[in-house]
């Protein structure tokens, strides 16, 4: 067995998030591996449908929930289209966990602000649940989440669950034109909604993930709100193949995103060429 050979995983649940996005729950078939499997919030894996190939996604479930992992993806390419066709009881391939992680333990006692756009909520969701599963250890929790339209919001049931909690402040928004008649959330792009929400920056960290344009536009807003560059964390979603620091695909400047990342602070991001 070599480092590129995947483990087999059973699909135990499928959730259709939007017309083109779904979440799979996977359990490693090998019992010993399943019991020993551990990861940190922010790490990723290589998921495969045999015959279609491998694709890279973060692990979207939190490390505090054992025995399974979840991944969420939008069906846009060959592998994700094939993953869209799998059913409960099917077998897929998994390699991981790979990469670095969010230093959640270092955030004890701090406020945590989560900002996500579109499918970018998947890696952030892992950290949100990780923090909520250890709720007492952290200060205020704020979530700002936006999607193109109401139908494009992922994890709708969890958005409601978070909204119903008194220990979470959540603001959801959809792009102008994406609202429905009964939409109760904000209408506007994520960046101005973050600015209007104005989470306080003192003794706080921000976790930001979304399309490159959302990350690019939101970083200066967080700076204006007083967040230091080393208190802003993001996860880069560069195209990857091996996940092991060999195939060269995710290399930007001095870093291999799969090994040195995918989690970077805004301070680290500023040191990189803008090739992400």
């Amino acid at each position: 067995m070599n480092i590129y050979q995947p483990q087999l995983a059973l699909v135990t649940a499928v959730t259709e998030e939007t017309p083109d996005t779904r979440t799979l729950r996977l359990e490693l078939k090998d019992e010993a591996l399943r019991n020993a499997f551990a990861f940190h919030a922010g790490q990723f894996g290589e998921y495969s449908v045999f015959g279609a190939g491998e694709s890279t996604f973060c692990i979207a479930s939190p490390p505090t929930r054992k025995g399974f992992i979840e991944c969420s993806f939008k069906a846009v390419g060959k592998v994700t289209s094939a993953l869209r066709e799998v059913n409960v009881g099917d077998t897929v391939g998994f390699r991981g966990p790979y990469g670095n992680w969010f230093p959640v333990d270092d955030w004890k006692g701090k406020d945590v602000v989560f900002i996500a756009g579109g499918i970018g909520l998947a890696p952030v969701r892992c950290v949100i649940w990780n923090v909520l599963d250890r709720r007492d250890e952290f200060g205020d929790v704020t979530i700002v989440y936006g999607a193109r339209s109401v139908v494009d919001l992922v994890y709708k049931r969890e958005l409601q669950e978070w909204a119903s909690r008194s220990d979470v402040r959540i603001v959801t928004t959809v792009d102008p034109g994406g609202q429905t008649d009964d939409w109760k959330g904000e209408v506007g792009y994520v960046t101005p909604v973050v600015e209007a929400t104005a989470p306080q920056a003192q003794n706080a960290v921000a976790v930001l993930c979304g399309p490159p344009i959302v990350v690019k536009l939101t970083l200066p807003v967080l700076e204006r709100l007083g967040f230091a560059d080393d208190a802003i964390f993001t996860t880069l979603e560069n195209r990857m193949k091996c996940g092991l620091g060999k195939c060269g695909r995710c290399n930007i400047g001095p870093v291999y995103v799969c090994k040195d990342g995918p989690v970077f602070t805004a301070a680290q991001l500023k040191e990189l060429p803008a090739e992400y």
Partner: protein
Amino acid sequence: MTSADPTRGTYFITEDDLRALTGELLGAGTEVIAPVALDVCASPSAIASSACLRPGVKPIDIEYRALESAAQLNLGSGLPVLSLKQYFLPEYEALCCWRQHGTEIEIEAVPTEFAPRVVLAAKPCDSAALAVVDKVMNWDYADELWNGRREATTIVNLACPVVDESCFCTAVGTAPDDAKGADALLTPVEGGFLMEATTDKGRALVEAHAARFTAEEGAGGAGARGRQAAEERAAARARAAANLEIDAASVRDWIDTHFEDPLLAALGVRCNGCGACSSVCPTCHCFDIVDEEEGIGKGTRRRCWDTCQAPTFTLHASGHNPRDSQNPRYRQRINHKFAIYPLKFGEVLCTGCGRCTRVCHAGQDLVEILQAIDIAARRREAVSP
């Protein structure tokens, strides 16, 4: 004459004995890879590269191939069309096979241990490239497929007289008489070759064929043949150095700190992204991973050579492409080879074989590019306090 004592370093072998040794290896069933006359029918991928595309470039007429007979062994001075890379990172390589039974999948592992084999008359730039790529293949996760082939292979270099004006090995930390990445070095001398075994595997090869070697008189190559070899080797080094001299450390630091410099940002203007440079490069190791179905419900997952010069290399599923034109893609090639890899792994990701320059039909010339960067780097040094 006495047979070789493998505990001593330098031996003499005649060409006849070298061919006889090759025959002994083949007779024992050992795979022997060596330069042979190019057979464009046998390796169609070599056709394009074998053409003499640029003035002053020698036509390429040899390639590395598994020998069928010792007579095929080509001990000339030319450069094989492709490097040794394909024998350690095959162009298409199985990573695992799968077989589907209903909803069940069975995975079959591929072997990571390989039969012993010998490479003869390797170009020093090609063996050095293997030692350079060893670093990325082992910096954390160990690539068992690469390592398995490396461990199974004994490499004997043949000192190179320097092929043509595109060669620049001495500018990037190796030399035409280097045994880096190899286990022994042959240097042509009057009547045959001096052979220096530099690793245990090299010494084992000498020991296994001790009757073919004679211990060279004069320790450390101090004999007449040793002096001749030293002269030839010094002359070859001088020829390589005449092609290109740069300060690799300054080049590295300059590239690292001048990402947006117009010189780096416009390098790809002539490049059309065909990726031939990556294919022929002994150090380019980037790969893709693809599934290939072989009938219904079974297939093989393979890795295959890829190139950072292709637009799809970094294309996100969303359509966003961080390197969306040829200029940033070519800059990545230069940056990765001469700054990123040296800073991360302490080695330049280039051994100066010059194949990329010779093969480029757009006229991208790495010697020219490195010269330009070196001049820029020195100018900065001249003005900095």
